[in-house]
């Protein structure tokens, strides 16, 4: 039981890490983004090109379940992520 708890805690840490990584990508690629530009594509493309499928799945799972820590720029890119 104790093992399971620590595992859960680490899963959370993993998700937390992915969320901050994704926000960093959005902050950098969405820098000075304007409505109608292609920053959402660039953010999604970066994550699709460099993240393993499991990492993308965990991010999308978090977005569906909670998502409160995701930046606006990142949220705009989520639907373009490969699943």
């Amino acid at each position, binding site marked *: 039981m104790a093992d399971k708890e620590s*595992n859960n805690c*680490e*899963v959370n*840490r*993993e998700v937390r*890490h*992915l969320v*901050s*990584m994704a926000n*960093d*990508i959005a*902050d*950098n690629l969405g*820098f*000075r983004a304007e409505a109608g530009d292609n920053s959402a594509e660039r953010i999604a493309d*970066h994550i699709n*090109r*460099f*993240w*393993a*499928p*499991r*990492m993308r799945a965990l991010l999308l799972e978090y977005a569906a379940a909670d998502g409160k820590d995701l930046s606006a720029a990142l949220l705009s890119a989520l639907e373009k992520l490969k699943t």
Partner: protein
Amino acid sequence: MSDIQQPLTQLRILDLGTPAPRDSAAQVSLEIDGQQVQVDAGTSVMRAAALLGINVPKLCATDSLDAFGSCRMCLVEIEGRKGMPASCTTPAEDGMVVNTQSGKLEKLRKNVLELYISDHPLDCVSCPSNGGCELQDVAADLGVEETRYGLQGLNHQQAAKDESNPYFTFDPSMCIVCYRCVRACDDIQGSFALTVDGRGFESKVSAGQMESFMDSECVSCGACVNSCPTAALEDKAVIEMGQPQKSTVTTCAYCGVGCAFEVETRANDQGADEVVRMTPYKDGRANEGHACVKGRFAFGYTSHKDRITKPMIRDSIDEAWREVSWGEAIAFTASRFRQIQSEYGRDSVGGITSSRCSNEETFLVQKLVRAGFGNNNVDTCARVCHSPTGYGLKTTLGESAGTQAFDSVDKADVVMLIGANPTEAHPVFGSRLKQRLREGAQLIVVDPRKTELVNGPHIRAAHHLQLLPGTNVAFLNAMAHVIISEGLADEDYVNQRCEIPSWEDWCDFIRLEENSPEHLQAVTGIPADELRAAARLFAGAGNAAIYYGLGVTEHSQGSTSVMGIANLAMATGNLGREGVGVNPLRGQNNVQGSCDMGSFPHELPGYRHISDANVRGLFENEWQVKLHEEPGLRIPNMFDAALGGVFKGLYCQGEDIAQSDPDTQHVEAALKSLQCLVVQDIFLNETARFAHVFLPGSTFLEKNGTFTNAERRISRVRKVMPSRSGKEDWEITMDLANALGYPMQYSHPSEIMDEIARLTPTFSGVNYAKLDRLGSIQWPCNEAAPEGTPTMHVDEFVRGKGYFAITGFVPTRERSTRKYPLLLTTGRVLSQYNVGAQTRRTGNVVWADQDLLEIHPVDAEDRGICTNDWVGIASRAGDTVLRAVVTDRVQPGVVYTTFHFPETGANIVTTENSDWATNCPEYKVTAVQATKVTRPSEWQKKNAAFNRRQKALLDKARV
């Protein structure tokens, strides 16, 4: 492949006496001893004679140093001229008629030589340099065996030896005061540590101001020892073991400069070859005969008693190790990995390729992961150093590598050095840079710390922009702002070579007031006037070159900084010729190579994305296996996935992730959670304490292969002795692949290189026969460039038009707070290398035997800290204890340390923050507090106990 059966032996290159003239346009013809010769104008008579095969006797002359004209041995007669000029200092002229041999010359030379040996021990037989002494050779050539002057007069024969340096001895009784050591220290190394004290008979070579070598400014590069014509400066190993008998040219296994060396060996009593010394190879293009204290002397680790030479296994990390046969170790590993994959899925295992192993060996590990494991979970140490370089340069220029050869710096007028400390971390390049600076090139140093190049002997930076850690992008944007707003850009170059829409967007962005140096000086800490002056100097130079290191990449915006650097170079037209360029100084010997070889989870060899079906098809056809089209896990994500319970097996080739990766406690927890950790290394490193399988690898002396240095130079590594473990590293990977049911059959690394060449367009022209013929090759090497490419992007960029990326400054989350008011940044010292596994096991510990914390006097005084005090350093990730050095090398608010010693645990305090694009850790910025303490940290105590336990478990294997 001639070297396979017969190593290059006795490869002594003729010393032509004086260097070739630089950039000589005209030729002159002259006659020497009745033979006609045509040479470049500016060539000395001595060199012209040597080119004809005529050996003029010499003692103070050597072609690695400018002529000095002091020994009076090389006198010649020139028709129509009075007297007998020294041939080393006399330039050859058109129509000159020279005699190098006559009765009169011989008499004069003999007399001079007799004077020399009247104050020199004549017992050649018992001298360590016997057979390797130029004085002895000249005496033999002239037939001088004794001196008319006798040995009774005043002399220096009782002078005391200086044995303070761990690697060489200075014996003044052998010295002929030819100044070669002094000139080598000044002109080649640039340390100015040696002088000749006194005049006339009192002249004595002296380190520092009559100090011992160890107490002086000497950095033990060995240039003086190499240049000494007698036994005055001699390797201790030569004194103890005798003159070497055989020499093999190979490539250094330390930093990314990739110096060529001759490994000089001698058979021991059992007939086995032992290394006597390593001497820098004059024909090596990366180093041209120079070396540093690591490559030249610190090879003792290769035969250290800590080497593990037998495979070992254990079921859990609380059990004792068991020594087993290679067959059992490989079968054990294969069955564990198969079992893990059947239980947890194909993606539950992965591998790490070593930036210290050869190209062939890293290629095989990524092949094993992709083809044998069936996933793309492969990564390499470049993740934690130069992955942003790969991303940034690929995005802007189209290729993930530096643009120049090292000798390009000889043509630079202004050098901007950002976040790099080459005199410590890339010493041989550092010396080359210092040579160029002494010739008059200007230097801009951008570094939070005062490094040697800011103000060193005969070197002073025009500008030291002492920015705060974490503000590189703000600095680069401010530089660009000045260049664009003051109209200093090279618009013709940009119009011709770059993508104009990206240029226009970038200019609009960079012109914004928020990027002005005045606006940003509060962020960067760089006074706006100074930054403007530096930008004007950089943009106004004929040739401006940027060199950068981990101070650029190891940040949350590492990739953005690299793109900012490329933008500056493109905007000022400083790419595509010699003397300019974007030059990453890469850390480890083969980190460029490991990246080239497809060690990243998203890229196949040659930086081609795994999602590209055409490229994948090429590999699938060659490897006869279906490849996975999605990127795999990077190292930090492997750790996360391990703690998430889905990643269970890791094959780690020659990298000490437990010491080198950030946030040690997180890394250790991840390693502990693995069901099978396989460590392939030469020592039981920090990571191996968590391992279930230990596969003993080979050092660079024990295998064949190639390394690729920071200038894309592929150089041969040649086997000089059998592997102590019985297997070269590529053989271990091959065995493991075969045991996993994925067949690999190679009988020599050259066959692996042939496969790399078949699959990688930038390597298509590379093979071992060509490497032997040319010495080294800078990739791309293919039909368009059959002998390689020293300068990249000459007519167009690899991506076609250069791309200006928008480089918005996004401050790091890591900033000083009330709880953690200081910013910790990290770096290297000269004598130690990376995690120190090699250098800590050599005499180099006399220069540095612990990591130290540099702290500014103001911050130290606030905390009551004095030099040598124990200081606790705490961040939100963890805390550790090390000794303080109070110094103004760091600015107030910034502290600095190195990570060479595992007991320090510098990475206990570094955090999980990383570069947004590549996840390269933000080693260079951690908010910390420093306090005076009296005892080690809790982690250090626990770590020490864990070490003792693991040592006991190892000892059980060895009884």
